[in-house]
């Protein structure tokens, strides 16, 4: 499958496997149509999960992971792409409807914007919350004290 994909896209794809689970690292520009091809030709019709991991030291800080599964082929792969802080990604909601909430959560936790997302706003944290908790630079004890003071009226903000 990888050979066929590589023939269409040339250098952008770099397949790897780890502990028997193969995944491919793809550069950012290929994302929207690669995912669409994966869903249509390769029948990966179930998007298990979309998540992100934050590597502050690397210059391309975030890598976004799509975990896909295909019912007909009973096979699961992961697609990863690396983006820098502040960059945004085309949304994959038109491809899989489940991506709606998953992307909203990634935005809520990491601050990565998905342009074209029908309703991109925080899902777990309150709307006015400042800061993105799952970033490495966001301390474990840190809270958005200003939001807490306004809404919950606890002066200390904790």
């Amino acid at each position, binding site marked *: 499958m990888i050979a066929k994909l590589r023939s269409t896209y040339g250098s952008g794809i770099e397949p790897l496997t780890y502990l028997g689970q193969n995944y491919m690292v793809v550069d950012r520009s290929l994302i929207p149509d690669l995912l669409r091809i994966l869903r249509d030709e390769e029948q990966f*019709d179930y998007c298990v999960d979309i998540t992100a991991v934050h590597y502050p030291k690397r210059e391309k800080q975030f890598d976004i992971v799509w975990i896909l599964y295909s019912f007909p082929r009973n096979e699961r792969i992961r697609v990863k792409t690396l983006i820098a802080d502040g960059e945004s990604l085309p949304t994959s909601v038109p491809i899989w409807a*489940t991506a709606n909430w998953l992307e909203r959560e990634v935005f809520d936790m990491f601050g990565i914007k998905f342009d074209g997302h029908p309703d991109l706003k925080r899902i777990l944290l309150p709307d006015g919350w400042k800061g993105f908790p799952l970033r490495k630079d966001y301390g474990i004890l840190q809270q958005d004290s200003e939001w807490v003071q306004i809404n919950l009226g606890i002066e200390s903000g904790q």
Partner: protein
Amino acid sequence: MTDPNTLSPLDLDTPDKTFLDANELVINMGPQHPATHGVLRVILRLDGEKVLGLECVIGYLHRGVEKIAENRTYTMFNPYVDRMDYVAAVSNGLGYCEAVEKLLNVEAPPRAQYIRVILTELNRMASHQLWLGTHALDIGAITPLFYTFRDREEILKIFEKYCGARLTTHAFRIGGLQYEAYEGFEKDVKNFVSFVKPKIDEYEELLTTNRIWLERTKGVGVISGKDAIALGVTGPVLRASGVKWDIRKALPYANYKNFDFEIPTGANGDTYDRYIVRMVEMRQSLRIIAQAVEGIPEGPIMAKVPKVMKPPVGEIYHSIEAPKGELGYFIVSDGSTQPYRIRVRPPSFVNLQALDVMCRGQLVADVIAVIGTLDIVLGEVDR
């Protein structure tokens, strides 16, 4: 059914929409509501009684489990996993331990795996029983609640005898089990299986052919197979829409492969089919438990696992069939004792997204029934 990919957002903040001018009414089924199984707030857009669309506001129970994971060692994070889906804590534990074992490239000994399968299937029974009781209560039948909770009590007794806790059991360890099965374990489980088998027929007797139950559940909250897959719905809800898929069969783990059991599927994906699928699943779990108890091998219960775990750099994704659906763990390790990132894929969170599609065009009373059939647990939705 409207194509889920083109769901328009609720235009709630348009100031000119006064309360009653258009016949469209926006009401708020608040976080504290008897039928929302926890702190879930649903904003309903109604035209009279019919639901035009709804939006779920969640996050009231958000404890930042994934952030905590990054500051705990692998073994220390184990108890947190039980607090997510507090109704099916054992399966959470199973998923996490197996994921880390995969990362460490370690295999739990067969005796440990058999006991793990028994406890997980018991937990699935308990979760389905709790679902049936509260779901029937939402629709108005009071009696099933007492029947199901009486039988669930037996399971919790076995858990308590085995690992001291009833609900958040923390029964498993990475690499196997902490406690050897207490000496009356097989006998208790056998008694339980024979005790509960006629009881499930009792639930069926009470509800399956009950005319009013049929009327309240048939054709309510319908979702087609295609929509279910597009929305990433898994578990009994997906199987009730006709998709025959169960991780225990598709990607077997914890040697489920040497137990034979069927996967029930429904025809038209309405509330009644989900009810039937879960009832059959309860019976299948009993079959699995019976086979597992027969074939428990002797041997060690703990694999050779270093005291301080330093898994090699890398990332893996491992998922199991929790009672609510596919529960997955995506663990990235950077070689230190603490995981670099743990991402939990919660079935209730994704299934809840399908609520809007399932409730369109239904009546307000049915929204409660549909929330019931989705069997969501807010601890897992909010993490």
